[in-house]
C-alpha cells in the first residue's frame, strides 16, 4: 500500500499543475492545437506530463489489482490479475510516452 499512497499523494500535486495549465488562459483557447503543442515544447511541462502518466498508471492499475484480488483468491486468478494489470500499466505508459515524444518533437518521426 505504500506505493499506492506515495503515488497518490505525488499525483495530487502534478495533476493540480496540469489542470491549472488549462486555466492560465480562457479554457477553450487553451485547447487549441497551437497552444497545446506549445505546452509540449516546454521541457519541464513534458517532464511533468510523463510523471503524471507514470504515477497515475501505477496508482490506478494497482488499485484495480487490489479490488480484483479481494474479489477472488486462487493461484490462477491472482497470477492472472497481477500479470494483466502490470501489462496494462506498461502498455498505457508506453502509448502515452509515445504521444509525449512525438508531440514534443524530441523523437524520430
Amino acid at each position, binding site marked *: 500500500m505504500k506505493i499506492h*499512497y506515495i503515488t497518490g499523494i505525488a499525483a495530487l500535486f502534478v495533476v493540480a499543475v496540469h489542470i491549472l495549465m488549462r486555466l492560465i488562459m480562457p479554457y477553450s483557447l487553451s485547447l487549441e*492545437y497551437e497552444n497545446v503543442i506549445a505546452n509540449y515544447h516546454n521541457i519541464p511541462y513534458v517532464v511533468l506530463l510523463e510523471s503524471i502518466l507514470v504515477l497515475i*498508471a501505477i496508482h490506478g492499475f494497482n488499485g484495480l489489482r487490489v479490488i480484483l484480488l479481494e474479489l477472488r483468491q486462487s493461484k490462477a486468478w491472482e497470477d492472472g490479475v497481477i500479470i494483466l494489470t502490470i501489462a496494462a500499466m506498461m502498455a498505457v505508459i508506453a502509448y502515452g510516452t509515445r504521444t509525449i515524444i512525438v508531440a514534443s518533437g524530441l523523437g524520430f518521426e
Partner: protein
Amino acid sequence: MEVADRNNREGIIGWLNPGRYGWERVSYWLQRLTGVGLLAYFVGHIYETSSLTQGPDAWAAMLELTQTPMGHLILLLVIGMSTYHSANGIRLIFTHGGKGLGKPGRPDYPYDAVSLNYRQKSGIWIALILAAAAMLYGASVLLGGE
C-alpha cells in the same frame, strides 16, 4: 420454523438499502467506484490526446467529439470523482496510520465501534463537500463560457 414464517428475507431490496449501513460503507464504495471511473477516464484521456500526433485536423475532430454538452458533463463528473477520491484518500492514509481512530474501548452494547467516530464522519463529509464545490467551479468554467 417454516420458510414462509421467516420475516428476514428482504432479497435484493435489502441488499441495496443504504440505510442499514453507515457513512463509512458509503465512503468505501464511493472510493472504489470513483477509482475505477477515474481509471477508465485516464485510459480514454491518453487515447484522445494521442490524436495530437496526427496533426491539427485530427485534434480538431477529437475536440468536436469531446467539447460537447455530454463531454462537459463527463468532465464535471471526473472533477467531482477526482476531488472526492483525493480528499477521502488522504483521510484513509491518516486512518491507516492510526490517526483519528481514538483509543480502543471495551465492546459494550450496542457495540458501536470507537474507531467509527465523528472525526471519520466529518472527514467523509468534507470530501463530499469539496467534490461538490469543485464540480460547481468546474461548471462555471466549462458551461459558463468565456
